[in-house]
């Protein structure tokens, strides 16, 4: 069984440390790469897909990257294990799908700061994930991994288009830089729509951090670049690191202060109601949990509630997700059973039984 040693705690990225971690939950950089001389995954034969997987697995597990790295063969793992990896942001939803035709795998290091998915949309999807605002560190780390891989793997590349990817929206640098932000005050003050619009104007994508494609649950947002061609990696990174993120962070902090100054009772009401429900509920959905944990996290970061540690809240964001719950309990559960197990876990972790 995957992750038996890390069932009830989170990876490095949810540690709640790092610069601006009250707003920036984590920083992520990913690179898309393909082996030259092979068709892309969607057009490769099963035999070619196996050859690609074999080659990448062999190299990753024998190179200098191999130290403490675990290889997971996804075609052999259970749906719950795959879902568990999705919740931990180690693999994508697409990579977790039940698909016998595409042999797929992922290499993960011990503290889950990096992962290499093999045979997702591209042959290789490399990611580095870190807590707080650490985009520069994440980029340097991923660049070293890329250099290491390039020692032995010949990546599809053209002078004109750069690194060639299955989808032209990733071509060029193949880089996707993103941050996961907690923006509860902008949501409460209704200013979140301005941020969304501004981000769109700057050609950035805004998604929910949990429940991809849907509404951002619990005020957690993921913002990422969309342009990968015609700019260098440092340029893409720098725009993000020095302009986009600091502005949104400052805006959220301003909104938090404004709430504390002008509507303290309203703010405290949100925080304490969240505490009351989370510590007393007997049955609770994942959506409600995220929304309430968001308010509690805001309160803890503003120092308005001292009964709970931010780090515990960060972990609960993850542990209350369906696959995590089922692995902690050690049994498959239907949604109704999960809502009950979720409420039990929350009361236990928040210290009120």
């Amino acid at each position: 069984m995957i992750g038996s040693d890390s069932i009830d705690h989170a990876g490095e990225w949810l540690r709640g440390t790092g610069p601006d971690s009250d707003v920036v939950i984590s920083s992520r950089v990913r690179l898309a790469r393909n082996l030259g001389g092979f068709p892309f995954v969607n057009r490769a034969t099963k035999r070619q897909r196996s050859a690609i997987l074999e080659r990448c697995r062999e190299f990753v597990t024998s190179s200098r990257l191999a130290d403490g790295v675990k290889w997971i063969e996804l075609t052999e793992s259970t749906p719950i294990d795959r879902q568990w990896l999705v919740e931990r942001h180690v693999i994508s939803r697409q990579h977790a799908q039940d698909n016998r035709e595409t042999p797929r795998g992922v290499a993960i290091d011990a503290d889950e700061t990096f992962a290499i998915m093999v045979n997702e949309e591209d042959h290789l999807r490399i990611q580095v994930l870190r807590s707080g605002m650490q985009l520069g560190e994440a980029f340097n780390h991923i660049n070293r991994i890329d250099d290491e891989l390039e020692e032995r793997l010949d990546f599809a590349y053209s002078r004109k288009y750069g690194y060639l990817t299955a989808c032209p929206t990733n071509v060029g640098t193949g880089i996707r830089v993103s941050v996961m932000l907690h923006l509860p005050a902008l949501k409460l003050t209704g200013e979140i729509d301005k941020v969304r619009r501004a981000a769109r104007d700057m050609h950035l994508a805004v998604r929910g951090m949990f429940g991809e494609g849907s509404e951002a649950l619990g005020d957690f947002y993921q913002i990422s670049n969309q342009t990968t061609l015609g700019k260098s990696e440092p340029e893409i990174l720098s725009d993000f690191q020095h302009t986009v993120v600091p502005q949104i962070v400052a805006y959220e902090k301003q909104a938090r202060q404004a709430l504390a100054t002008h509507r303290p009772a309203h703010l405290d009401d949100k925080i304490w109601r969240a505490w009351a429900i989370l510590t007393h509920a007997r049955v609770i959905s994942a959506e409600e949990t995220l929304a309430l944990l968001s308010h509690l996290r805001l309160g803890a970061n503003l120092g308005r509630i001292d009964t709970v540690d931010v780090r515990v809240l960060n972990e609960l964001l993850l542990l209350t997700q369906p696959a995590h719950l089922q692995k902690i309990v050690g049994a498959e559960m239907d949604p109704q059973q999960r809502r009950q197990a979720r409420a039990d876990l929350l009361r236990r972790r928040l210290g009120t039984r």
Partner: protein
Amino acid sequence: MKRTCDRCQNPATHHSVEIIKGQKIEKHLCDACAAEEGYAPAAAHTPVNELLNNFIKSHSGAPTKKDLTCEVCGLSYTQFREKSLLGCPQCYSAFESMIDPLLERAHEGGSHHLGKVPRRAGAGEQRQAQLLHMRKRLSEAVSREDYELAARLRDDINQLETDLSSSSS
């Protein structure tokens, strides 16, 4: 001076001069009479660049948009637009003229790579294309159960890849 048609009283729009047996014969006809006499109607309203494009297309043997296909992986341009996924690295050159405007739209006007260059760039590009072609022939040979050819191709591929990795280290 405004001429009228040689055959009727409409204004003449079609003028031609032919020399037949040393005799100069001038003809002035209106559109309708010119068509009756077998002269092609003047395509006065077709923009020059369209005429040029048609000319280039009909002379270069380039297929029209619809059936443009990547000869390495067999993906057609229509299939690409349906799934938004290309089939192989070679697709980028196969669909170059259509993909370039798409890229500029998707990447804020970016059309050329300005980022990291892998250490083995350049020398690798040609060999990568060669490998793609050979792998295509290999899977064709396997599906035809032509194992003799398949074995030969496999050896060639291995050889080419050995050259590749030894040249880099």
